[in-house]
């Protein structure tokens, strides 16, 4: 299986009055066909900017992709015109958003919105598209799909709205599905249902998924491979089982240690000291060095490259050099 999406040295900056925010500063990763890649990291580390950069939906101004390449199915997305990009959005790359409450247009019935997405790309007559929408609603386990298509968004619960969003995303059978924190705004019990739904549909449709989350639990149950982001960079990448069994980067280790466990008797939660760096003026060298327990001299001067230290397990850390 070849890789469907290959992101290389992607850098997205935001030019604001307070200075240049280097939201992404050289991000590289790839997703194979039929694979779920989990992208984890703290709030503000650049996960969502990665997603919107791939979709070509960076608000501009102030945002701009300053360098790098995004190869999708052999095509360079960054060189496409807006019109060409529009035919890829939805049709080949679809996206699910974090907040289902504000992701649907409140003035149209939900079935119509899904049908509209189908119509926009395939010019399917709206009546047929509505039937297709009802069929999709059935696939995402919305009860009584034929009645559900004529509901307005405010008449549906959060979980149901997210199912509608998933149905809309899947309506055109995209090759890549970007799910940006798809369950963060939902109750835990609904979360599990939505996640297993995404996993089932991913298997049925054979799509690849870029799953963005700050929740390591979500990532560990879903992803085949995991990339850990810190301050606009990928610091570690590897197969899910390797990465969770044997995390290499001190940041990943800190993240995993910070998960409270019921079987351990600890009175205090483990934390990573310090705070995430200011992206207008990030620390020189390795961006994690001010918080790193293993900090060395070289860390303050040189940015460590992302290198494979074990088969299929890459890390960007000077401690593994040589």
């Amino acid at each position, binding site marked *: 299986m070849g890789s469907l999406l290959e992101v290389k040295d992607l850098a997205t900056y935001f030019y604001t009055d307070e200075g240049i925010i280097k939201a992404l500063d050289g991000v590289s990763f790839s997703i194979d066909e039929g694979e779920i890649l989990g992208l984890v990291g703290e709030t503000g580390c650049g996960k969502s900017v990665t997603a919107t950069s791939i979709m070509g939906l960076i608000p501009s101004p102030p945002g701009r992709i300053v360098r790098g390449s995004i190869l999708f199915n052999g095509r360079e997305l960054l060189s496409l015109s807006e019109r060409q990009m529009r035919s890829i959005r939805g049709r080949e790359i679809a996206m699910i958003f974090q907040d289902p409450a504000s992701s649907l247009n409140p003035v149209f019935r939900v079935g119509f919105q899904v049908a509209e997405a189908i119509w926009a790309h395939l010019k399917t007559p709206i009546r047929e598209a509505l039937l297709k929408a009802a069929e999709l609603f059935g696939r995402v386990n919305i009860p009584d799909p034929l*009645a559900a298509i004529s509901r307005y968004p405010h008449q549906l619960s959060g979980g149901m709205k997210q199912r509608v969003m998933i149905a809309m995303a899947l309506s055109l059978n995209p090759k890549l599905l970007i799910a940006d924190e798809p369950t963060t705004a939902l109750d835990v019990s609904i979360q599990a249902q939505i996640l297993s739904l995404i996993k089932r549909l991913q298997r049925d449709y054979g799509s690849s998924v870029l799953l963005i989350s700050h929740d390591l639990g979500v990532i560990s149950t879903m992803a085949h491979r995991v990339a850990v982001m810190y301050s606009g960079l990928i610091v570690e990448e590897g197969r899910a089982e390797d990465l969770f069994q044997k995390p290499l980067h001190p940041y990943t280790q800190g993240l995993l240690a910070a998960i409270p466990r019921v079987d351990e008797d600890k009175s205090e939660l483990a934390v990573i000291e310090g705070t995430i760096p200011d992206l207008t003026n990030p620390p020189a060298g390795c961006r994690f060095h001010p918080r790193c327990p293993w900090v060395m001299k070289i860390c303050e001067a040189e940015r460590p490259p992302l290198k494979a230290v074990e088969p299929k397990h890459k890390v960007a850390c000077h401690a593994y050099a040589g």
Partner: protein
Amino acid sequence: MTKESTKRPAHAAWRRLKKNKIAIAGLFIVILYVACAIFAPHISPHDPTKQSLADSFLMPNAEHLLGCDEFGRDILSRIIWGARISLLIQVSSVIVALLVGISLGALGGYYGGKLDELIMRFMDILLAFPGMLLALAIVAMLGPSVRNLIVAIGIYSVPQFARITRGAVLAVSANEYVLGAKAIGESDLSVIVRYVLPNALSPIIVQTTLRMATVLLTASGLGFLGLGVQPPNPEWGTMLSSARMYLRSAPHVAIFPGLAIMITVLGFNFLGDGLQDALNPRLKE
């Protein structure tokens, strides 16, 4: 399909509006006014321009319910026909202002940046003129006629609509469904027309209603100054203007058109305020 599933958001707004007595009074006045305008030939008791010097300054009586003016024309008929001209001016000039204002405001709000800056600074320049003076200057330049009146009032109403639309578009564009629409590959035009504007509609509706009142006042004001509708056409401001000379001897000639203006403007304002509360229930607190 259950009954509940077909309920539109507009129904909820109508339910809230129905509870507001003042708004309903406003709606009633507006309906009466529009009916007068539409059915003027059928309901006016006399010809509005037919003079009868014997009836000059006739006080209200059974034949002429509101009396007669200086040329013996029936005032009630003139007021009813006046509604027709006023409504024509209001609707056409507000449509002009809506089309231009919404387009400019939506473009500015949606694209932002330099385009927005350019549009809004231009609107600021228009706003810097006192409204009446701007309309006055345009009419003085083009000459007084109903068409020029509509153009003048339309132009001077554009900035209000542009600003309101821009603000609403900015707020709506922040919603994820707008990003979502782009993410399913909708074109900018389609995003603006189908996703942004329908959700930005309520402040525009309120502004349209309130603007109807302002436009009526401006049109009457211009008529009063002799730059609006020309006599012998019955327009309320023009009627008021010619009646002012007889204010002492025959006050009823001025009072009735004045009352017509006042009641109609009040009606639109009541309705506009009511719509504001009905469409944005959270704003009320």
